[in-house]
């Protein structure tokens, strides 16, 4: 063809399918993408610098604003890391409550991820609203216990902030009752829909070796078939005495990642049911000294967030504030393969691949 200069297109900060202020500069030749450049940093609040001037307890609200779609799992990760550093032992009831809320947050975040992926593939937000029906119920449960739907700030060092009210448990029970067949309803709506398959099958294929080398984690890694889940590999919050499975994908395309998230929601429902059955009685929080001063040292603690391995690297110098707090952003690191995946494919494919990797810009920019 004639050698004209490539066609610069800015999938800019304000775009319906970039899940937040995230910009991709794409240079295209016709419909094929020649070069892709990610521009990040629109939501950079330098959380790590701020956390150095606040005490350990005051940093908890930061964590649920890092990944605003999975606030509970962020809080869980941070509190577990600090408890391990200051060797505080939370009561048994708090650990089980934490598991319940982390898994509920995983269901809500996966509903959001799959819903936006489908509306990126073009369906007029119908599946998104079906999935939001469940997400609304879960957010009501959160509001009932800790007053906030999105930035929950529910967990404390040494336990959980509040005891869930009496009507929390019956509501949770009938939510768990109806959730599995709601998932089957989405599966019938989407997983056998020819157009959705045509749009997501063989799109953005990541083979397992590249996935591991590019330090992908979470559904993106399991989509390529790598059986790695931190809840099983490095059981925190005694996940090892719940039995649940880890769903895997076949070839690592967007369709597999979508299905992995769908099945993970079913597994989370199983976990919550078991947690509810043996919810021990007792205090929901132990007493910790107001001026918590863990002894000097460093710790890298990892939990399995909805988007991947959510790590907290804490260095303490014995003072009331962490000397250095680094949050390992699974969304940012999952994007290290986006450039190879997008080059050579067309624009709609790149958008679907980005949607299937499921990023949250708050976590990328911190």
């Amino acid at each position: 063809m004639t050698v004209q200069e490539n066609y610069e297109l800015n999938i800019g900060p304000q775009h319906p399918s970039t899940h937040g202020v995230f910009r991709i500069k794409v240079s295209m030749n016709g419909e094929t993408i020649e070069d892709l450049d990610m521009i990040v940093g629109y939501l950079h609040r330098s959380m790590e610098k701020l956390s150095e001037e606040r005490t350990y307890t005051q940093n908890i609200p930061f964590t649920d604003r890092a990944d605003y779609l999975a606030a509970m799992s962020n809080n869980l990760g941070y509190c577990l890391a600090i408890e391990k550093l200051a060797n505080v032992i939370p009561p048994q009831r708090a650990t089980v409550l934490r598991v319940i809320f982390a898994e509920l947050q995983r269901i809500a975040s996966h509903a959001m991820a799959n819903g936006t992926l489908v509306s990126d593939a073009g369906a007029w937000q119908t599946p998104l609203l079906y999935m939001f029906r469940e997400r609304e119920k879960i957010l009501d449960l959160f509001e009932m216990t800790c007053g906030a739907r999105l930035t929950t700030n529910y967990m404390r060092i040494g336990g959980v902030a509040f005891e869930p009210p009496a009507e929390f448990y019956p509501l949770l029970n009938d939510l768990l009752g109806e959730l599995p067949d709601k998932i089957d309803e989405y599966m019938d709506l989407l997983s056998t829909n020819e157009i959705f398959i045509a749009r997501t099958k063989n799109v953005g294929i990541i083979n397992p070796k590249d996935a591991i080398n590019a330090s992908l984690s979470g559904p993106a890694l399991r989509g390529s078939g790598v059986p790695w889940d931190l809840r099983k590999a490095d059981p925190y919050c005694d996940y090892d005495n719940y039995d649940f499975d880890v769903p895997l994908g076949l070839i690592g395309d967007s369709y597999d990642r979508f299905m992995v998230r769908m099945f993970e929601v079913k597994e989370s429902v199983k976990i919550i049911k078991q947690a509810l059955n043996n919810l021990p009685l007792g205090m929901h929080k132990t007493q910790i000294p107001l001026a918590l001063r863990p002894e000097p040292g460093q710790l890298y603690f990892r939990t399995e967030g909805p988007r991947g391995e959510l790590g907290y690297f804490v260095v303490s110098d014995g003072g009331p504030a962490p000397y250095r707090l680094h949050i390992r952003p699974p969304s940012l690191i999952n994007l290290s393969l986006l450039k190879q995946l997008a080059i050579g494919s067309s624009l709609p494919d790149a958008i679907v691949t980005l949607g299937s990797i499921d990023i949250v810009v708050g976590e990328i920019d911190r």
Partner: protein
Amino acid sequence: MSLIFSFIPYIKRLIVLILILFGLAVGFILSKALFDLSIYSNAVFDFMIDKSSYNVAYFSSSLIGALGIISFIGLVLLVGSWVERRMIAKFQIRVGPNRVGIFGLLQPIADAIKLMQKEVLVPAVADKLLFFIAPVAIFIPAILAWAPIPWGPNMTYLNINIGILYIFAVSSLTVPIIFFAGWSSMNHYALLGSMRTVAMMVSYEIPISLSLLSVVIITGTLNLTEIVLWQSSNSIWLGLLIPFSLFTFFFSSTAEINRTPNDIAEAESEIVAGYHIEYSGMKAGLFMAVELGNAVLLGALVTSLFLNGWFLFGLENYIPPYIIFIAKTVAIYIVLIWLRATLPRFRLDQLMNFAWKMLIPVSIINFFMIAIETTIITNLDSSKYIIYLFAIINIAVFVGLIILWSKIFKIDKFSPEKIAPIFAQKIGGIKAMEGTKSVD
């Protein structure tokens, strides 16, 4: 008392229901007069003929007809956007507009007023002439195409004997206008959107022409009214006789008017709004209105060509025929809304492959089959019931062709039966993975 209060929302709906029934009853009683609206234009013609020359009389009576159609299109644009938003809302388990007016009926008017008072932005580098002409020029073909549509027995505005060709020519006029709309706003997204639309529309005109050709062959005329009369005289719906043409026509014209599942032009998630991205205010309103008008026009075309226009098994003697015609059009329009609410979007090259590798060859085969059948029907003047035999053969062949074609081209690379989840036997990296692979 609380019992009555709990019924308040239902009483409101009850009242509206009674109103509708009452309206229908009055309409039915009055309908003896409203049976055939062409009486009024003829009356105007006779009145004017002795006042002045033939041309003036002809012109003024045709004005009455034009007024009727334009008012119907206006009504469709207003009610249509309300119906569409409510229907999609019902699909998405939400309520849809119900604030403005009872049941939100005034919402379209509110939208129109909002759009009108919005400031019209013109990009500095835009080509002013084309930028201003495009939204107006895109509306002309949408209204021109309503002329040959048969509303009732002799209620066709323009009863020309090249009806189908006229519609085809007018709809092919929109392609350059859409391109000028996209190109003149000098915006990368708009240019990409307009190039996509032009490529898609050009490549979907061929399947449409082939499917219309098979309709013309079997009925022998291009005039839409005569097609409807042929269907009623042979008492078979063309949609049943040649199902593949109905499918091709319906699918390709969704591509032609940019509705899901082929709304590539203004694919929100990719190029934000395609060719009408730079238009604001009433210009953008015009583009959306045209899309709505085209959807209902598609409904009217499908009813008159394939679903036997204003006949409904003898019902047209009791109810005014154009009411049946409008009912069928609205039914097709609701199918379009249903498609829009549920289906995701094709990628551009999948769409092109589907048109060139599937629609065109299969509709050529279908075209030959129907040519053979028409020669049998017309020359051997066999019994009347052979048409039903042909209908059954055609439906069987239609289903067979689609399955055959998808097997040949392996278009469905992935057999979509339910997927059983694969669970990890042991947790680990590559070695653990080899374990799971060999097991299943």
